[in-house]
């Protein structure tokens, strides 16, 4: 049986900031349907990797292919159009608008109607769809409220919901449980994974919390000094002493 074409592929992806090698000839292969965790110490290049893939940063060398299409050098808005979406470590929200309005805008963008200037944003199909999205993420109670009223975990979820509303095929999440209290962490991830499984979205999530990675990831990539030093199922990879040392600083 022919190998399924990767949904994301990087070839010798390289990026340096002055003396710091943030990405060092990274070669990565992600196939459709995978749930991949990315771990690594601070400064190991995890967020840089996401920034490079989504076009926020331009690589010094190397190529990026999304669903087989060359995306190297494209800016974020073109990369998104290829079927990708991304959530952020610090939630990127429209704080002057309501929760529902944030979602409606994402839906409008997905429909390619962001510059529609006559028919209203508050329209039937989007309102329905938006309410459904909020419900799946447990945020429906806050729909009409300003974003400022959302608790921390709620903002994280909204940030992810906005990316999800774009109906991506590949979803990148940057530390989805950071800033969320320990009690809520698993609840948030449970919500997330249920939603993602139902929609059959390929996921890559950067995480600090090893428990989260072990429980929800099928595969984990370990980053260190801009390189991927390990790649495999969480249980085994996280047991390697080199990995434990690099990521957790344990001897």
């Amino acid at each position, binding site marked *: 049986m022919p190998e399924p074409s990767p949904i994301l592929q990087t070839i010798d992806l390289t990026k340096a900031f002055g003396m710091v090698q943030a990405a060092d000839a990274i070669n990565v292969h992600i196939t459709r349907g995978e749930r991949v965790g990315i771990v690594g110490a601070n400064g190991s290049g995890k967020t840089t990797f996401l920034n490079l893939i*989504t076009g926020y940063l331009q690589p010094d060398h190397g190529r990026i292919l999304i669903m087989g299409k060359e995306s190297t050098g494209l*800016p*974020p*808005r073109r990369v*998104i*159009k290829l079927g990708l*979406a*991304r959530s*952020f470590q610090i939630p*990127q*929200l*429209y*704080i*002057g*608008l309501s929760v529902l*309005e944030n979602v*409606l*805008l*994402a839906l*409008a*963008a*997905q429909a390619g*109607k*962001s*510059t*529609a*200037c*006559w*028919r*209203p*944003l*508050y329209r039937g199909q989007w309102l329905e769809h938006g309410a459904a999205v909020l419900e799946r993420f447990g945020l429906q109670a806050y729909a009409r409220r300003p974003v400022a009223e959302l608790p921390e975990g709620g903002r994280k979820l909204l940030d992810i919901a*906005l*990316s999800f509303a*774009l109906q991506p095929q590949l979803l990148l999440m940057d530390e989805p449980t950071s800033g969320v209290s320990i009690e809520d962490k698993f609840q948030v991830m449970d919500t997330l994974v249920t939603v993602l499984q139902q929609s059959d979205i390929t996921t890559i999530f950067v995480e600090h919390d090893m428990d989260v990675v072990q429980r929800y990831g099928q595969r984990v990539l370990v980053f260190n000094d801009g390189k991927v030093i390990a790649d495999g199922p969480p249980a085994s990879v996280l047991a390697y002493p080199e990995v434990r040392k690099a990521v957790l600083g344990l001897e």
Partner: protein
Amino acid sequence: MAARPWLLAVPIVAGLFVAAPFVAPSWILFILHLALAKFLVVLAVALFLRGGLVSFGHALFYAVGAYTAGFAAKWFGVREALLLVPLAGLFGAAVAAVIGLFMARYRGVFFAMLNLAVSMILYAILLKFYWLTGGTDGLRVQTPTLLGFVPPRDLIRMTSYYVALVVAGVMTYVVYRFLASPLGYYLKALADNEIRIEYSGESVQRVIYATYVLSGALGGLGGVLAAFTVGHIVPEYAFWTQSGEFVFVALLGGYGSVPGPLIGAIAFEFIRTYANKYAPYAWQMTLGIIMLLIILLQPGGLWAMYESVVARFSRRAEGVERA
């Protein structure tokens, strides 16, 4: 929310505007007329303020609109409202469509000052090519004809006023729809988070560009209406102080709403009349001080003051009902 006072206020205000030529003294009518014209340009500036951008150059479109009427009168002897008004809007939009391609790349001070630069270039052109533009002497603009008919003498002012009222009304509706549309909300989102916009697959530049074209049309319409009411246009219509005035009025009235700019425009004309009387040599200072006070104390402007008063009354009313 404050929905109930709204429903009452709109027909009352509309009624007042319609009745004005019959009940108001002519100096107030003139103020209302000029305010209606300038309101449109202030609306354009307010749109950008909503998106977190300041333009110090919207006098450019104001002048384009005004000189549309001026040139039409000078070279073609045309003063037909039904032709010149849409034409002015169109020219404003066209100029904006060209400049916007460049302007949409900038934010902050750059956006503000580049707009200023372009408007000052137009000013210099209007001055320099005086054999075409009338230079510092300016151009005369007569009151408009309607469908070719010259209104009878005593109805001239009134006709011109109603033209302005209709145009302002139509554009108010257009802007309301704009603000309720995805683009209108994206404009507001622009002030908050450009990154999220880009990561939604949308181009921030497109949002700015589309708004710019609309604002150009509004500016042109305001200019032609002002030309009809004042009757005489000069290159100063493009000067940066005129742009500054529009920004000031947007702040004064409150740029977060559509009625705000109109209230601001009317208030401004009154302020100007009284300042001319009592402090003619300190006009810039007067403006500067008022602006400072607004920014530091009530950034929402007059409209926000109105809303908080209304809110307090409705709370009291609810309190009375419950008691």
